[in-house]
C-alpha cells in the first residue's frame, strides 16, 4: 500500500540538481547530479550528507549493481566511473574505458559482469573486469538523411543479453549486445522516449515519453503456445501532460513521474487479484506536508516556497448570507511581505506565531527568527540576532498558542524549546528527548492551548508527550503500526487527536495517559469504508473553540468537520451526505445526521484551518495554476483541432 508511509521530503539545494538516484547496500540512497557530486542521503535526519566529487564533470546517470556494492556513474566527459559502497560513504574504484560523448544512462547486467551505457548516437557495453569497451553500437546507423543527433535517454540490460534503449527519435530498440545487431525496433512516439523500466521477470517494460504518454511493452509468444516470443507494445497510458522523466515497474503496477509534478500509479489489472485498493489508479500531486501556516488571531497566512516565504493578511467582509453565496469583500487580502531565504538551500519548514508577530524558518544549515511589527498599514520586519545554536536542520516549527515560546523539532527525537522575548530576542529554555532516545528526527509537533503539553512525533512514528511546566517527559502514546500524518491537542480537553496514514483516527487523553472513550468506541465500530479507502492522508487537524465536540480534518480533496456528539456512520450509510441533507426538510435531517460532515467543494486543498467558531480559511492550489507555470509540453496535434 503506497500511502503506508507519507513521503518524507529532503529539501533541495539550488546548485545541486539531482539527475539520478539509486538504492545501494540495503537501504542507502545515493543521488548524483549536474553539480558533479555523488551524495548520500541521511534518511534518518532527512538531509544530504557526505558529497563526493565524481571528478568527471556533471553526472548524468548512476546505477548500482545487483548486490548494491558498487555504483557506476556516467559523466559529461564520457567516462564511466565505478565506486565501491563502503560503510559511511563511497570510495572511487576505477575508470572504465573513456570515449567522447556524455554518458546519459547506465545499466548493469544482472550478473554484474557488464555495463551498458547510452550516449549520443551510440551505446556501449563495458566489461566490468577489464574495463574495456567490448561493444559499440551506433543507434542511428540507418537514419543518415536526418542529421539530428540521436540521444539514448534510457537503457536496460536484460539477463538474456538483450540491451533495451529508448531514444530521442521516439524509438524503443532491442539489441543483441554480443553481435551488435538490432533485434527489434518500435517507434512509439514522434518525440523522445525519456525513461524506461523493466519488470523483475523481464517480461514487461514501461517507457515514458516527452508527450506525457507511457507505454507498456510485453514479451509475448508470437502465436498461442509458440516458443518464439516478441516484444509487443501493449498498453498506452496518458496520465501526464509533460515529460515523463521517471518510470518504475512494480510487480502489480506501472509507476510514472513527470515534469507536471504528478506521481501516477497505474495498476496492471491482470496482476491484481481482487478488486480493491490496489486495483485503482492513484495520482499524487502534492507533498503531504504543511506548507502553509496560519496566525489565527492576527488572521495572517504564511506561505512557504522553496526559497522564499510570503505573508498575507486575509480579506474581510461585513455581510452575511445564505449557503453558497459569495460575499462582497470589504477589505481585499493584502500581501504584507516576502522574505527571501539567503543562500542556495531550500527551506525545510516555517511558521508564523498565532499573534502574527513572529516568523521563523529553517534551512538545512540555518535557523532564522524574525519579529514582525505592524504600524497602521505598514509592516516592518526585524531579524532576531543571536538565535541559540541548535542542532540543525529543524524539521518542524511550532509556536505556543500565547506566542511566548517556539518549539523546534530536531534530529534524534529532540525538541528544543525557545523562549521568545520582547522586543525581539530569544533564549534556549530546554531540549526534550525521548527517554529511550531515537535515531529519527521529529517531524510533527503539537502543543496544547494552555501551554501545558507538547506532543512530538518522530520518524519511528512514536508519539511522545512532554510536560512544559516542569520540562519533563510525560508519556508515550501506545505505538501504532502506521505513520502519523497529523496531530493536534484539543484546547479544552487536552485530548490529543491523531490521524494515521491508514486513515484511522485516535483520541488520546494526555492528562489521563489513555485513549478516550470516544476513541475506543471508534475503534470498536470501525470507520466508514469510504473514509478508509481515501488515498490522501489527513494533513491538518484543528478544533472549534466554541464547540468542543467539533474536530476539523482535511486532506487534499476534502475537509471534514467531525462532530463527536453524533453517531458514526455505518458502511451502508452515505458518507458524503451533505448535498442529500440539504434537500431534506429539517425534521427528516435529524435521522440522517452522522459524525462526518464532509465538504469537497474546495480542491485540491493545500491547507484548511479554523479562524474562529464560524470562520474557516481554505487554501486551494488549482492544478491548472501549476501547469501554466511549467514549460510548455511538446506540442502535439490533437485530433480535430
Amino acid at each position, binding site marked *: 500500500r503506497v500511502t503506508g508511509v507519507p513521503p518524507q521530503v529532503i529539501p533541495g539545494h539550488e546548485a545541486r540538481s539531482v539527475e539520478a538516484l539509486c538504492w545501494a547496500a540495503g537501504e542507502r540512497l545515493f543521488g548524483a547530479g549536474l553539480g558533479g557530486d555523488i551524495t548520500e542521503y541521511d534518511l534518518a535526519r532527512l538531509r544530504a550528507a557526505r558529497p563526493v566529487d565524481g571528478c568527471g564533470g556533471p553526472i548524468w546517470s548512476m546505477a548500482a549493481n545487483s548486490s548494491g556494492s558498487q555504483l557506476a556513474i556516467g559523466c559529461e566527459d564520457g567516462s564511466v566511473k565505478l565506486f565501491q559502497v563502503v560503510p559511511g560513504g563511497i570510495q572511487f574504484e576505477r575508470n572504465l574505458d573513456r570515449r567522447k560523448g556524455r554518458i546519459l544512462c547506465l545499466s548493469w547486467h544482472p550478473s554484474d559482469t557488464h555495463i551498458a551505457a547510452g550516449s549520443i548516437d551510440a551505446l556501449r557495453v563495458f566489461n566490468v573486469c577489464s574495463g574495456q569497451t567490448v561493444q559499440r*553500437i*551506433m543507434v542511428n*546507423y*540507418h537514419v543518415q538523411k536526418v542529421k539530428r543527433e540521436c540521444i539514448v535517454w534510457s537503457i536496460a540490460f536484460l539477463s538474456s543479453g538483450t540491451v533495451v534503449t529508448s531514444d530521442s527519435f521516439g524509438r524503443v530498440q532491442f539489441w543483441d549486445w554480443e*553481435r*551488435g*545487431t*538490432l533485434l527489434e525496433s518500435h517507434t512509439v512516439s514522434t518525440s523522445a522516449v525519456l525513461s524506461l523500466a523493466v519488470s523483475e521477470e523481464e517480461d514487461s517494460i514501461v517507457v515514458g515519453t516527452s508527450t506525457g504518454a507511457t507505454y507498456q511493452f510485453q514479451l509475448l509468444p508470437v502465436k498461442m503456445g509458440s516458443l518464439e516470443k516478441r516484444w509487443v507494445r501493449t498498453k498506452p497510458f496518458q496520465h501526464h501532460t509533460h515529460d515523463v522523466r521517471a518510470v518504475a515497474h512494480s510487480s502489480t503496477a506501472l509507476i510514472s513521474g513527470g515534469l507536471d509534478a504528478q506521481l501516477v500509479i497505474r495498476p496492471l489489472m491482470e496482476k491484481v487479484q481482487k478488486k480493491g485498493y490496489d486495483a485503482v489508479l492513484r495520482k499524487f500531486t502534492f507533498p503531504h506536508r504543511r506548507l502553509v501556516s496560519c496566525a489565527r488571531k492576527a488572521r495572517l497566512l504564511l506561505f512557504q516556497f522553496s526559497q522564499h516565504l510570503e505573508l498575507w493578511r486575509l*480579506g*474581510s*467582509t461585513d455581510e*452575511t*448570507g*445564505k*449557503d*453558497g*453565496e*459569495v*460575499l462582497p*469583500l470589504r477589505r*481585499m*487580502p493584502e500581501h504584507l511581505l516576502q522574505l527571501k531565504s539567503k543562500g542556495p538551500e531550500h527551506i525545510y519548514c516555517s511558521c508564523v506565531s498565532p499573534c502574527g508577530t513572529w516568523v521563523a524558518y529553517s534551512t538545512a544549515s540555518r535557523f532564522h527568527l524574525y519579529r514582525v511589527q505592524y504600524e497602521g498599514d505598514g509592516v516592518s520586519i526585524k531579524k532576531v540576532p543571536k538565535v541559540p545554536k541548535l542542532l540543525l536542520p529543524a524539521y518542524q516549527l511550532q509556536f505556543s498558542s500565547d506566542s511566548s515560546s517556539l518549539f523546534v523539532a530536531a534530529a534524534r527525537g529532540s525538541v528544543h524549546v525557545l523562549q521568545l522575548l520582547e522586543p525581539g530576542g530569544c533564549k534556549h529554555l530546554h531540549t526534550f528527548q525521548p527517554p529511550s532516545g531515537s535515531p529519527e528526527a521529529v517531524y510533527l509537533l503539537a502543543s496544547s492551548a494552555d501551554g501545558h503539553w507538547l506532543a512530538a512525533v518522530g520518524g519511528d512514528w512514536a508519539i511522545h508527550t512532554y510536560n512544559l511546566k516542569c520540562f519533563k517527559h510525560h508519556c508515550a502514546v501506545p505505538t501504532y503500526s502506521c505513520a502519523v500524518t497529523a496531530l493536534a491537542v484539543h484546547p479544552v480537553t487536552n485530548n490529543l487527536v491523531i490521524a494515521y496514514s491508514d486513515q484511522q483516527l485516535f483520541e488520546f487523553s494526555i492528562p489521563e495517559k489513555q485513549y478516550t472513550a470516544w476513541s475506543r468506541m471508534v475503534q470498536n465500530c470501525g470507520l466508514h469504508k469510504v473514509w478508509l479507502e481515501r488515498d490522501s492522508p489527513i494533513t491538518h487537524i484543528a478544533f472549534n473553540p466554541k464547540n468542543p465536540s467539533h474536530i476539523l480534518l482535511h486532506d487534499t480533496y476534502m475537509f471534514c*468537520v467531525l462532530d463527536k456528539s453524533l453517531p458514526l456512520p455505518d458502511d451502508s450509510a452515505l458518507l458524503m451526505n*451533505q448535498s442529500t*441533507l*440539504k434537500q431534506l426538510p429539517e425534521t427528516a*435531517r435529524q435521522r440522517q*445526521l452522522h459524525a462526518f*460532515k464532509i*465538504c469537497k*467543494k474546495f480542491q485540491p486543498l493545500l491547507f484548511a484551518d479554523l479562524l474562529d467558531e464560524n470562520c*474557516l480559511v481554505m487554501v486551494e492550489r488549482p492544478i491548472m495554476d501549476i501547469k501554466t507555470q511549467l514549460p510548455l509540453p511538446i506540442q502535439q496535434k490533437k485530433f480535430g483541432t
Partner: protein
Amino acid sequence: VSDQKPLGCWSVKHGQIITCPVVCNFETGEYIAVHDDKVLRIWKNKDVNLDKVFKATLSADVYRIHSLPHGGPVVLFKGGGVRTLDVLLEAPQQEIENVISDEVIKWSEAFTEGQQPVLIFATEKDGDFFVYVQKLKMNSLHKYKLEQHELSKPLSFTAHIKNQVVTLLCLYSNDSVYKVLIPLHQNTEEEEQILSKSLLLNLSVSGSVLKGTSLVVLDKDHIAVLGSLALSGEESKECLTIWNTKFQTLQTSKELPLGTSGQLWCYEEKFFFTHGKVLTVIMYKCETSSLAAAVGKLKDSQTSDVSSFVNWNTLGDEELVVSFQSQQSVALKSESKMTLRSKRNAVAKVQPDTLSVGQLLLNLKDASTTVFEDELRQLVSKAQMPDFQATIGCVVTALINRCKTNPKYYPRNFLLQIVQTRDLSYSLCPDLMAVALEKKDVHLLQTCLQRFPDIPEEITYTCLKVFLSISEAYLQRIDVNLESVICYIDIEFNNKEVKTEIVENGFNAELEQDIWNTKITKETHLMADGEFCPVGPQKAALLNAVLHSAYSETFLLPHLKNLPAQQAVLFLRYLYYLYVKCSEKINTTLPGIRSPTINQIMDWMCLLLDAHFTVMVMLPEAKQLLSNLHKFVRAQVRFYSELNKIEGSLRELQRLNHQKDSQTYSIEVLELI
C-alpha cells in the same frame, strides 16, 4: 539491417569453388557446404579453418542441399537423386541413381508435410519443363510435365504446401504469374501427367510491365515479386513489389535504384535481398485482403494519376475486380470479338473505334431492335472514351428517337440502367423524361428526379401531378425505390416498435419524452389523421423524389397553381405528415437515405399554401387539416421561443459561473449540516 557485421566468415582454399548455397542444420547448429560439386564440408560456429573441418567426397554432383526445420538436411543431386544427409554420410561413396536423363534442374524446394520431407524440383529439356515431387520416406517419385506455353517459358518458381496440395507459382517470361496445383497423395503410377496452369496475376501497372526475376508467396492473397519495372520510354527501374492476387492489384512497391542480384528470400515476415552492395532486410505485413484496402492502396500507389473509374458492368465475375488497366484490355478484347460478330452480321462494316459515334448511330438506325440494343450496350460499356458523357447523351437520344418513331418500343430496363449508372443530366437527353412521363414509367422518373440536377420546374410539376394522380393500386404493382421512406413510414403491417429510433447527444427516451410531453400529448390526439401516412409507401417515395429535386420558386409557383385542388390537399396532407414525423425527433431529421429534410418539407408546404391558399380555405375537407397545421406550428413556435429563453438563462448562468471561477480570493458562505 542497420548495422551489418559479419558474425562469422569461412573460406575455401584457392581454386576450390563453392557450388551450392551453404545451409544450416538447425538441429545440430552445423553448416553444410559443397565445393567442387562433390565435396561436402560440415562445420560448426566455433570452427575457424574450413580446410580442417569434416569432409566427405560424394560420388555424384550435388545440385542443392535443403535444410528442414524438423528432420535433417536433404541433398538433391544433379541427376535428380535425393538422399537425406544422414543416409549419405553413412556411405559417402554410395551410388546415386540418375532419375532425369538429359534434363537440367532449374529449381528445387523442400517441405515437411505430415512429418515427412517432400522435395519438389523443376527441370528443363528442350523448352519442356517438368516437375518432380519426391516423397523421401515413401521413396516415391512423381514426374509431371508442365503445360506448354506458346511463347514464354518459366523464369522463376515458388511453391507452398497446404492440405496435401502443392501450389506451384511460376513466373513466366510474358510477365504473368501462373498457378499450378499438384496433389501430393498420388498413388497411381501414371506416366507423366500434364499439369495445367491457370493465370494468377498479370504483372502490369498502368502501362508499364514488371519484368519479374523472382517471386515469393506471402500469404494466400499476396505475393512479392522482385523485378524491373519498364516504363514506356523510360529506363527500367528495379523494384520490389507486393501484389494482391485476389483483387489483382499492386499493393505496394519499393524502388531499388542501386540494383539487385535478382534474388529474393523471405523468412519470418522479412524480405532479404541484395541492394547495391548491402543486404537489405525489409519487414512486411500483409493485412487481410479486402476490396476496400486493395482499391484504397491503389489510390496511394503509382496508379493514382489514372482515374479510378471502374466499369462495373463489364465485370463478369465480381471476384475478378481487375485494376483499371487490365479492365481496359478485357473490355477491348470483348469488343473486338463483338466486332467480329457484327461483321458477320454485316451491320457495321468498320471497327467502332475508328467510327464516330454519330456515324455508328446512323448506321444502326435501321438495325433490328436487339442488334441496336446490343450495339448501344457495348458503346455504353466503353468507359474510357474521351467525351463519354456526350456519347451517352447521343445513345439515350437515339433510344428515345426510336421510341418516338416506334410507339411499341420502350427499353425500360436499359434506360433505367443507363440513368442509374451514368452521370447524366436533363439537358443531355431532354426528351427522356417526356417519354417516361408519357409511358408513366415512374421508377425512371424517380431515378431521374434523384439524379438530374437540372430538371425544369415544368417537368418537376408534371411529375408531381402524375405521381399524385396515379392510383395506389397501380403503384403497388410497380417497382419503386423505397429507401427514402422505409425507415419512417407506418405501413400497416409495420408495428411501431420496428421504427428505428435515433437518439442523439446523450438524450434518452425518457428525457425526450419529458421535453415533448408538454406539447405532443395534446397534439397526438388532435391530429389523429396526421398520424398515419395519407399515401402508400410507393407514392411517398415518388413524392420524396419530387421534394428532393432542385427548383426555383418563381418558376415553380405558376405551374403549381394548376394542380387540382384534391391533389393539392393530398400533397399538403402528406407534407404535414412528414412535418410531424420530423418534429418527433430531437434532431428533426427523418431517418433513411434520401429522405426529405425539414427545410425541403417546409419550403414545399409554404409553396403549396401560397399557390392554393384561397382554394384551401374554401375547401371543407382542407379546413380541419389547415387548423391542425396551424395549431401544430403555433405549438412549435412557442416551444422554440421557450427554448430560446432557457438558452439565454443558461448562458447567463454560465457567465456567472465563469466569473466566479476567475476569482482567486473570495469569502463564501458554507453551511454544514
